[in-house]
């Protein structure tokens, strides 16, 4: 794995706290103080009630596979030794009942591409790149 050569995340001023939490191996989302809606990715306003007040709250760290790709083409030379690799789009279990619609990307780790199917339960895994960066990846739950 050439993890160290991957593109690094460039946090913005809204997302910096999220990336800091990931660095501590904590998965968080924003919760609107105005209406309770959960929010990700990071923004400072709620698009339902337009409140600017929110808190960072722990996420369950579980979700379901919504879609995925298996990448074969070498789009980036630094990842040439990783192809083919899967990229998942996961809908978090948090807020799913009330349609809060929290989606996160990540690679599949500790699972087989052939086992991927829509709705597959997965759980978050924290992978440390180096002294500065940690990424959230996903593995089949249980």
């Amino acid at each position, binding site marked *: 794995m050439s993890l160290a050569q991957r593109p690094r995340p460039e946090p913005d*001023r809204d997302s910096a706290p999220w990336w800091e939490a990931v660095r501590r191996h904590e998965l968080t989302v924003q919760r609107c103080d105005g209406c309770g809606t959960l929010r990700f990715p990071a923004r*400072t306003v709620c698009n339902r009630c337009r409140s600017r007040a929110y808190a960072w709250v722990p996420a369950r760290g579980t979700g379901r596979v919504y879609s*995925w*790709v298996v990448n074969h*083409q070498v789009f980036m030379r630094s990842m040439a030794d990783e192809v083919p690799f899967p990229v998942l789009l996961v809908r978090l279990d948090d807020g799913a009942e009330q349609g809060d619609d929290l989606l*996160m*990307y990540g690679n599949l780790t500790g699972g087989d591409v052939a086992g991927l199917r829509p709705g597959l339960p997965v759980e978050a895994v924290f992978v440390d790149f180096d002294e500065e960066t940690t990424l959230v990846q996903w593995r089949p739950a249980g």
Partner: protein
Amino acid sequence: MGTFRDRTAVAGVGYTPFSKDSGVSTLTLAVDAILAALDDAGLTVDDVDALATHRVGDSTPPWVVAPALGVPEVSWYLDQFGGGSVSHSVVGQAAMAVAAGVAETVVCYRAINARSEFRMGGTGRGPAPLFDTQYQAPYGYFAPPQQFAMFARAHMNAYGTTHEQLGRVAVGQRASAVRNPRALKRDPITLDDYLASRWIAEPLRLLDCCLETDGACAIVVTSRERARDLAHPPVLISGAAWGGGDSLFSGAGSGVDGTDFTVTEAARLAPRLYAMAGVGPGEVDVAEIYDCFTYSVLVQLEDYGFCAKGEGGPYIESGAILPGGELPVNTHGGFLSEGYVHGINHIAEAVAQLRGTAGDRQVPGAEVALSTAQPGYVLAGTSALILRSDP
């Protein structure tokens, strides 16, 4: 002329505090200024149907601001590249949109951290990366074939769409390109050729992808009256619509609703477009549909109303979009086989069809054409035209 003067008005203004270090993102600045301006006008976000800004890689575009605010439907937007010299054109173009009746209430904004983040002349932090990139690129996910593969898989998951159905788009468009002397790819292909082509990003293969192309194409627009005195019979612009825009996270057309990658912004745009043109999908004789990838054609057949949601695959299998079918699609071969000039060559082909000058690939008696843009999955929403021959 004379249709513009005094027809539009400024109804509200709003500010954030000015400082040397706002401490917040340009998205937050934009949101705060817009909410203040709406408040000043006695309006709310629900009254907004258009957004306009300019930037030089240093700010947050309408397609991030609109879903962040929860704007219900964006029927027009402007994301103008440029600095101070274009600043007043933003309001001028907003006024044109209102005067033309394509938007009712436009918020114009400029949000910059011109001291604490991006300083003019390239000092300070470099241009901000796209909003979504930080959450995707570290996983090796950033290229358009990967994005459209993700959307195609979601459609397969929901509706059982098959590789063969996607392949029939590529095979059919190549058959059209064979009749187009301008096309880059003119060798016929079969479904077996398609299925044998290598993976790029599963579920998309090489032959699902458009041709990276060097080239240019241009279009002249003038009044109908002037056009009638010129070299060709006029091709009338009956409808032109654009809008929407969401990040890849919130999904196409889903600023507030749940993410559903099987529906694109085109589904919200289509009713506005058809109403403006005074026609429905049943009256479209030929369609040039944005085909960066085969799947883009399939989903737009649904979203522009040629078949029901989820029925794009069977509709393609029926042969409807082939030459001689009920709705010939991408009669020039499209980006997949003619070449990829980012959309304008679709418009040019629609014009040729309506002029009746498309040669071996002419759709007999074509009077109404639809030409569409990237359907809103990536960056700034979508756009489309309905063109017709001068009756």
